[in-house]
């Protein structure tokens, strides 16, 4: 009996104004020492959590759309949400982007966007230089085109696919521009040299707080959905 999980794209019009990623590393309490210090151990594994807040919407994003989304959220759908409004990823400027290819994406060569005023997605990548196994936390990346852009706390997506899991850098050791990364979360798949990491990760997760998302729903021209907390879906 195999299970096929349906993945829904978070509507691109419902753009969050604030996003925050965290590795939900909780800890496990254990005993007290003789000096009554309580010890705790970091929980093994853990999953990424993405919190997103929304401002007021009007126009295309009306109450009908939000109400549909509320039902989908309650139904426990797996959503794919790009992490675009977060200071935790390496910014386009740090990656050497000029103003025109900032977070609004890349236009066509004649500087025109698509007919819906959207640009091409800005999707910078770097190459993994050594094989890495599922479950391990170590990764080697070649940052030659960009410089030493990765540091503690930066989030990247691992894997070239759009569903490459977001992961946080805990430690970096540079050898020239080859960075050996110690990640916060275990890798979700095996990777080979030549696979890619993405500087603009995409979160794949289920919403943990549908009540909060639906709580601020009301009829009106302008609508503000509540915040959502996506927990990484391990598929």
């Amino acid at each position: 009996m195999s299970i096929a999980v349906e993945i829904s794209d978070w509507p691109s019009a419902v753009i969050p104004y604030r996003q925050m990623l965290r590795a939900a590393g909780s800890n496990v309490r254990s005993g007290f020492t003789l000096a009554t210090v309580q010890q705790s151990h970091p929980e093994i594994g853990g999953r990424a959590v993405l919190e997103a807040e929304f401002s007021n919407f009007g126009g295309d994003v009306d109450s009908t759309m939000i109400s549909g989304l509320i039902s989908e959220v309650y139904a426990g759908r797996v959503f794919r949400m790009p992490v675009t409004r977060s200071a935790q990823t390496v910014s386009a400027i740090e990656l050497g982007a000029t103003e025109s290819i900032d977070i609004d994406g890349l236009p066509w060569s004649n500087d025109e966007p698509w007919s819906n005023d959207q640009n091409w997605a800005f999707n910078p990548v770097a190459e993994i230089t050594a094989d890495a196994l599922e479950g391990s936390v170590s990764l080697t990346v070649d940052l030659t085109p960009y410089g030493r852009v990765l540091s503690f706390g930066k989030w990247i997506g691992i894997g070239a696919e759009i569903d490459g899991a977001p992961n946080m850098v805990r430690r970096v050791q540079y050898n020239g521009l080859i960075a050996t990364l110690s990640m916060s979360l275990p890798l979700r798949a095996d990777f080979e040299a030549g696979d890619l990491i993405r500087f603009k990760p995409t979160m794949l997760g289920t919403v943990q707080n549908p009540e909060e998302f639906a709580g601020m729903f009301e009829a009106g021209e302008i609508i503000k959905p509540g915040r959502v907390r996506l927990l990484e879906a391990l598929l």
Partner: protein
Amino acid sequence: MNFLEALDQYRGDDEDSADISCPLVPVYEYDLTSGPIRMWPGFGRLHTIDGRKWLGTVDSSGVDHHQAPGPRDGRDGTSAKMTFGLPYIDRETYNQIRLVKEESRDRPVRVYLCVLLPNEGLRPQTPLRFQAEYTLISPLFDSGLTWDEVRFIRRYSVSIIGRDGNQSRALADLGTYTSTGQRDRAAEFGIAVDRGCDFVAALENVTVKPQ
């Protein structure tokens, strides 16, 4: 580094048990007829150094979907009743498990301890330590309605009882004392006729007094 060395590293110079702590998790291998199923109480897949993969049984809200009893010592000769359970499964899974319940008949479940050192992710490098082995005896299937303050929810659960090597130890492994049984055993040894137990049936409910 083997398991005991890893423990020693955690122990350091401390001698009092209150000063020593080490993150250990029990991992469970159900060796079913068609292949083993391995589980560990955590998130995601755990890869041990022997190449085995263990499925994480804890969901996003911290509920462990696999219930296992704590270890019990059988050195006093008792055989504790250990119940391993999957308390929250859907109807489909429940029915599927019912169809293959003979998979678990007299099969072993093995419990190992896994020491998880920091910075190893889900790929611990220390070999597992064998802790216990139980024989799976009888699966129990249960479905019932529970009330969660808002609505009735039908809950399906499967559990199985495991016993250790002391199970049925007191029962001697001999044949039954009947004439037919005795003739069969005699035939196995090449004796054509053994009438040694012919009188047994006649002795049922009879008190025999030696003369």
